[in-house]
């Protein structure tokens, strides 16, 4: 069996980290959670994830700003960055466009979360 795809989830809310992890992880996906903007860059470099899910509303450094910081690393590894937030879909779409990240997923839409993650990881749904 091929090795699992790695998804790094960054969120300040433990409940969201828990649900996202439990909802996504399966035989093909390994979910690594990170509850702070601190150390995300190192985490991305060490882990070499196949996908990064970023929350927007986080203390001190919001996800969109964090995206700008980790983008150069992710681009070299061809790792998509996707916003995952409870914000308005419109504002998420705008943010994703402005920051040149690969996409966005609205929290609370479980089906969308699974299908989009599978698509970014190039896995069969």
């Amino acid at each position: 069996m091929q090795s699992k795809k790695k998804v790094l989830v960054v969120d300040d809310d433990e409940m969201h980290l828990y649900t996202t992890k439990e909802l996504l992880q399966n035989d093909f996906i390994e979910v690594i959670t990170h509850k702070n903007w601190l150390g995300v860059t190192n985490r991305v470099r060490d882990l070499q994830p196949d996908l990064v899910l970023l929350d927007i509303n986080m203390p001190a450094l919001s996800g969109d700003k964090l995206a700008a910081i980790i983008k150069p690393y992710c681009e070299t590894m061809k790792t998509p960055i996707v916003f995952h937030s409870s914000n308005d879909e419109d504002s998420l779409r705008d943010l994703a466009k402005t920051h040149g990240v690969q996409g966005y997923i609205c929290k609370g839409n479980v089906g969308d979360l699974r299908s989009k993650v599978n698509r970014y990881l190039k896995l069969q749904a």
Partner: protein
Amino acid sequence: MQTVNAQGNVLPVGELIISNEQATPQTVVNKVAERFFSTTDVDAIAVVEDNEPVGLITRTKLLFTLFRRFGFELYGKYPIIAIAETTPLIVPENERLDIVIDKALERQPQDIYDEIIVTTPGGAYKGLLSVKQLVIQQSNSLASNILQKEMASARARELEKINQVKSQFLANVTHELRSPVNAIIGLAELLRMSAEKGSIEQIKERLSFMISSATNLRAIITNILDLSKLEAGKMEVSFLEINATALISEIAETTRILAGKKPVTVKVEAPPLPIMISTDPVKLRQIIMNLASNAAKFTEQGEVTLSLSIIGSRLEIAVADTGIGIKEQDIDKLFIAFGQVEDAKTKQHEGTGLGLTISKNLAELINGSITIRSAYGKGTTFVVSLPLQNNNAGQGEL
């Protein structure tokens, strides 16, 4: 035709008439001269026949004519119409100020400052206008127009700002409500998965997460409703005589539970005798509980101290912690709804950032105030100051 000019100035000149001096065309020049000599107030006299203006004589021109060689002898006994300007500028009373000024200034240089005759729309003599007065009036109204414009644009900017704050507030409310709802949806899906697997342990764990998310959601909704009630002035107050020392001790108990396993000591410092105060106990509890739970939340180790002291006719309740403290530049933002941190999109810790706004409003509602002392990295002290006595206090016990 009345159109608004660039300055928006539509003042009719009829309102600016300075005098209605007049003489018949047959009045002799000497008589008119006497009127000019007897007062300095009259600068011009209209020549009026059958109620209609037929000429104008100004002080300057009359004197110029009379004091030239043999002027008095030559003209003194002439009727005034002989030396009066017989084609003076005549405007109807409803003419606009700026148009009249334009007409006045289009005259020959020596006539520019001649008074202007105003008539009714029917042509009857009404009075005289002074060009100098018109120009002063025009520049005053220009200045006030500029001022009005500035005030209007300041108001517009203010409204724009209020709008931005409102939509930011709405965006924050939406996010705060959606976040726990989304957690609940995720947990429901996870529960379904656990049920399919038949894992009772997992179901139990996820149910307790779900309850905590739902409780969090309820707290947020309560806060938002409280805030809107406060802002609409619909929060009711009822004053009772209560034992403040007992209330604070009780809040300290709850704060100990909130601090949990963290190495944080919760202390109460109060005078030996119980302090009685007439206040709204529900509101006071909400204010102090909010401050104390914030203190417990933001203190990783050290102390949270609740203290009571009487200062004159007021009771001061201080909630001091040895937590992270607040940067000076952030203190002003504390009492703003959702103003937890610099960026509205970011949250410092759990919570909506509504608690302090609500506490401040509640304190004002019960005739009190909240002040803050903080040193970043060293801790924060909130002081709630309340009058010991309030009118209409009922009797009650805590």
